[in-house]
């Protein structure tokens, strides 16, 4: 009889509870709103039974039982709140506080400490303890992790998140009895991925962040849940923001809000690398080149100059302005930039730093919906095929999802890589292949047996490859994840293989926070938003007005065109092609170059006008992660005298005499601004008001509100028609990747330049993060194996 497992019924505090067999009592209690306190119990990690806070009375049991280790059984009768239980909890807290330093007034965790909360809820008002407390000095374990032993309650959460969750195993327990202590497994320092999850998961202030400790109190900050601006995974990070001289200063990043696609996870970048925002090198006023030197100027001066020069170039030479978009600006900004280039500059010369072949991916899916996997799918899939990339370094969240899917759901991981990547430890099958042979894997999987010749090695025989292919073919709902190694013609080959597997879904890995969004929003010389070919007539032509229909030139060609004098203007929004893509800086010496950036990068230093911008933490909008999950950015910080790219683009259009109503459809459609872009306390609304007033515009309907263009994106970009209310309330919404024009022209694969960031680098941005740099420097001081041994 293959009946579905029967639900188990039990009684807790007189309430009837029904839960599936195997449910832990502590979880079953939650379902009826009964809180059973605990320190050491943490969902999805191994059971400890160590803190004894969850002791409850179960009928017919002589002793109190731990609800965290008890599996429910039929007709169990549980009491969670009688005198005996209350006394047990109280005594447990009394004993914990016996040796606790009670330094709450200076402790980082004060105000958000589970021990405090528990003591208030269940503890004793007075201490019976009068002996000298055991003391141990605080220790620094890494540039970003500090440990205060006296505060530690030994719940072992840090040990488990590091070992079980991260597969890093940098933490352990030393000694025994009352001198038991959490300690790094490597002498006196952590040899780890510096993710800082041990800090987040610590219920007390024992583990503290090197970047945040003793800076402020939790109640002095505003907590803003936004999306990390670093890699393409799109973790939700909660930023703690405080008023500062320069505006709104971000003082902390953490993961207290578990609602994001990252659940419990956050890596070093999401947690610490917000600090580029107050790097002293941050540009805080526009720079205009005068007599060969970049000198401070006013915004008005800058806009006037840009408007004049861009208009001249456009009117005289037509297609002679190049536009370089960003992989770290919002979808709204990218869409606006795409529209601005075509409509205002009247050019298709627009491109961005490509890190994945999204157009080929969109084309290969050939309009099939539900074939892209969300980040949540990766955690739940029964099987995963991973080709290329090293997610541990380049996509830490994706690696976490895969690793924990294997650990918690026993998913099968088939990993194919040219290096012995760390995820091989979780792999059911790991096949090491020669470097650059990923395309052959696609060919072999799709049925080309001859391709196996190039793949056989000591660990992967021809038979092994055949068996792997057979196994994959029998999988259902397989998630196929591939790095940028799979591009061009290999990509449709792999997709063809995958589409034959029932329910299979794909993830195409792009490197930066909004690489996918940049592609989806049409930062291509031949593609409009939604991978719509510029040559094809369609709704963009109808809706936007007259736009050029011949494809423009791609990034490398822009440099060539500038050299020959054909490209007379270059507009770079948040990109650094000189450093990242090897642009010849002298190629543009005769062009008028405008760069929007936070720092005087290699590209900015060749500009004629440099405009200081707000970063992704300082504005609202949306990002699309590499899986296609659309998420809302909320404005957290602010630095005076910088402007969001969105506002700047609108202002340039205005300076060029363009009617901004035609660019940003503000005041029409659903009013989307939930007050996030405005920053009510910041005075931004008032600053806008002057300009708005001068233009006879209703102050509240702002064209600088990026949400004003979200309606248009949702209407025109296929797959983006997700629930707006869900999106705006901070939920991730998976977009369906659809190519409007089936079979887009194959792109030149050589235009893809993977970022190859590791855990501690993040393109140009990473160079300005003190936290990342301190870790890198520290690792140079302590050269170590690249991998932390689990075995």
């Amino acid at each position, binding site marked *: 009889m293959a009946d579905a497992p029967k639900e188990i019924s039990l009684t807790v505090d007189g309430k009837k509870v029904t839960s599936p067999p195997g449910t832990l009592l502590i979880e079953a209690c939650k379902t009826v709103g009964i809180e059973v306190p605990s320190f050491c119990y943490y969902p999805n990690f191994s*059971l*400890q*039974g*160590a*803190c*004894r*806070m969850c*002791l409850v009375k179960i009928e017919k049991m*002589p*002793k*109190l039982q731990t609800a965290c*280790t008890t*599996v429910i059984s039929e007709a169990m009768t549980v009491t969670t709140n009688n005198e005996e239980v209350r*006394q*047990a909890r109280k*005594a*447990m807290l*009394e*004993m*914990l506080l*016996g*040796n606790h330093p009670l330094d709450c007034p200076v402790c980082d965790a004060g105000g958000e400490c589970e021990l405090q909360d528990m003591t208030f809820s269940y503890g004793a008002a007075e201490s*019976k*303890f*009068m*002996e*000298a407390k*055991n003391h141990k000095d605080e220790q620094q374990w890494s540039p970003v992790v500090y440990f205060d032993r006296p505060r530690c*309650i*030994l719940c072992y959460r840090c040990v488990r998140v590091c070992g079980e969750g991260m597969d890093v195993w940098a933490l352990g*327990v030393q*000694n*025994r*009895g*009352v*001198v*038991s202590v959490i300690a790094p497994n490597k002498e006196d320092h952590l040899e780890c991925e510096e993710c800082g999850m041990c800090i987040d998961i610590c219920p007390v202030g024992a583990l503290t962040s090197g970047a945040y400790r003793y800076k402020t109190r939790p109640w002095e900050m505003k907590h803003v849940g936004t999306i990390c601006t670093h890699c393409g995974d799109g973790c939700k990070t909660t930023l703690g923001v405080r008023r500062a001289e320069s505006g709104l200063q971000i003082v902390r990043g953490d993961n207290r809000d578990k609602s994001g696609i990252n659940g419990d996870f956050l890596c070093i970048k999401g947690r610490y690398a917000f600090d580029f925002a107050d790097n002293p090198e941050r540009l805080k006023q526009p720079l205009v080149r005068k007599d060969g030197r970049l000198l401070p100027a006013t915004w008005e001066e800058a806009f006037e100059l840009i408007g004049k020069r861009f208009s001249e170039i456009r009117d005289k030479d037509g297609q002679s302005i190049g536009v370089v978009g960003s992989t770290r600006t919002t979808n709204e900004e990218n869409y606006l930039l795409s529209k601005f280039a075509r409509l205002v500059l009247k050019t298709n010369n627009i491109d961005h730093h490509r890190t994945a072949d999204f157009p080929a991916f969109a084309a290969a899916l050939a309009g099939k919906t539900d074939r892209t996997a969300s980040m949540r799918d990766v955690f739940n899939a029964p099987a995963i095929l991973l080709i290329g990339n090293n997610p541990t370094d380049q996509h830490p969240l994706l690696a976490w999802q895969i690793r924990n899917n294997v650990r918690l759901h026993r998913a099968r991981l088939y990993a194919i890589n040219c290096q012995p990547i760390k995820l091989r430890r979780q792999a059911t099958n790991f096949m090491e292949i020669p470097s650059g042979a990923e395309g052959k894997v696609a060919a072999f999987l799709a049925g080309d047996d001859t391709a196996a010749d190039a793949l056989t090695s000591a660990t992967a025989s021809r038979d092994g490859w055949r068996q792997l292919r057979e196994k994959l073919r029998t999988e259902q709902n397989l998630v196929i994840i591939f790095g940028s190694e799979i591009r061009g013609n290999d990509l449709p080959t792999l997709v063809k293989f995958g589409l034959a597997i029932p329910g299979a879904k794909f993830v195409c890995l792009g490197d930066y926070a909004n690489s996918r969004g940049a592609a989806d929003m049409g930062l291509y010389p031949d593609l409009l938003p939604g991978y719509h070919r510029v040559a094809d007539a369609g709704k963009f032509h109808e809706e936007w007005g007259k736009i050029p229909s011949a494809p423009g030139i791609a990034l490398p060609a822009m440099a060539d065109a500038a050299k020959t004098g054909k490209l007379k203007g270059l507009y770079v929004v948040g990109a650094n092609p000189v450093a990242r893509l090897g642009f010849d800086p002298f190629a543009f010496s005769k062009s008028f170059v405008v760069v929007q950036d936070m720092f005087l990068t290699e590209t900015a230093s060749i500009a004629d006008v440099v405009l200081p911008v707000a970063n992704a933490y300082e504005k609202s909008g949306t990002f699309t992660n590499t899986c296609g999950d659309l998420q809302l950015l909320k404005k957290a910080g602010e630095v005076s005298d910088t402007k969001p790219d969105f506002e700047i683009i609108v202002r340039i259009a205005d300076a060029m005499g363009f009617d901004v109503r035609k660019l940003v459809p503000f005041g029409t459609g659903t009013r989307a601004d939930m007050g996030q872009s405005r920053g009510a306390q910041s005075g931004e609304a008032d600053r806008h008001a002057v300009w708005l007033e001068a233009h006879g515009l209703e102050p509240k309907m702002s064209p600088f509100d990026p949400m004003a263009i979200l309606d248009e994106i949702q209407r025109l970009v296929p797959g983006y028609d997700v629930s707006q209310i869900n999106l705006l309330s901070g939920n991730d919404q998976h977009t369906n990747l659809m190519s409007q024009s089936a079979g887009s022209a194959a792109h030149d694969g050589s235009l893809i330049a993977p970022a190859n960031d590791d855990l501690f680098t993040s393109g140009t941005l990473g160079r300005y993060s003190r936290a990342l740099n301190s870790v890198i420097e520290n690792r140079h001081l302590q050269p170590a194996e690249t991998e932390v041994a689990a075995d």
Partner: protein
Amino acid sequence: MIIDFRLLIEDHGTSTIKNQKSTIKNRQSKMASLVSHPDEVRVVSKRFGQGATSIDRYLELDGYKAVQKALGMQPDAIVNEVKNSGLRGRGGAGFNTGLKWSFVPKQSPKPKYVLCNGDESEPGTCKDRLIFEHDPHAVIEGVVIAGLAVGSHTGYIYIRGEYRYLSEIMQKALKDAYARGFLGKNILGSGYDFDVYWHGGAGAYEVGEESALMESLEGKRGIPRVRPPFPAVVGLWGGPTVINNAETLASVPPIILGGAEWYAAIGPPKNGGTRLFCLSGNLARPGVYELPMGYNLKKMIYEVGGGIPNSRKLKAVVPGGSSTPCLTADEVDVSMDFDSLMKAGSMLGSGGVVVLDDSTCIVKFALRTMKFYQHESCGWCIPCREGTDWLKKTLTRFHAGGGLKKDIDNIQYLAENMLGRTFCPLGDAAAMPTIAFVKKFRKEFEDHLEGKPCPFEKEAAIEQLPVMA
């Protein structure tokens, strides 16, 4: 053999090296003098002092006959024989051994194991040591029979770290047993394979707890495991595991040879057989005596142990190792079996009978006991880790003359709040005797109050610690 009470009380567990040295010295000087008494029924100790460490001698003294017999029996029959004998775990908990064996699943995808728990560390207990020293083959034989009963092919004999000097004896015994075909492939030509390995501990009382012992054996920190699953289902290396005390396993061969009925009849109902009682403390003839279960404690003290020397009076008895609640002089007319002692509010425990005369300071004894548990707590759970430390600190101050009236209640409060709430029984082991000391000897605690020096000592304090008001 005689155990020096002071040695036991002062040095046990605090310093491994010191302890080992003194124990070795003690052993060398005292080893020859095994004690005896006419009331003894020698079942486990019958080969003591007869050179049974030599396999030939062991064979002469009915050695390995039980295995031969067991090889001809159905596994269920062996289990039933042991079950019916009323043999209960000699490690302290007193669970029916045969019943424990019957919980092991017949079919298992993972190998099954038999573990001999020789991590004897309870203060006052020194019986397994004698078995290893005088009759190591009996343990091996017991392990093999347990293996036959549950269908296991591998056994481990885990010996306490501080008993390292016994490892040579055990290793030699194993080597000899292999050489004679009692272990290894096809034992005694039966077609049954059985391997036994020796493993030494690293010096932790906690590892005497069965699941912590498995962790230790697997090379991890010696901390207990979450249960269920119980070892019989998921034990060593995840396989079904039978784990028994060394004395329990050494009792198995005689049961197989002599039969369940004979063994059960030695003791009172449900408490079959004999028990190695380790008499120590203020006695004229301390030592390890094998007496029938249910032997009267008073008789044990005054007749077997020779009574209290130096015309002193009996003050209290710790009946089953330091973790059991003490009995006062009025309570000693009790039958020494699991059930009777339970009724008397104490436990038979591991058979370590520690006798205290009226010159003993109960506060100091409580402190010494707590020092041991504070030192040995593995630190895994809050009540044991923090409770034992707190109690040790308070008792230290208290005994040094810095006690306050409320401390007496606090000590009892702490111990009562540890009891039954810790992750493993170590917390209970620390709490139970403490509660009994305070309840039964409250007067002695009160005599230490108000800065008064310990009434039993000339010097005021055993340790000079700051006295806190």
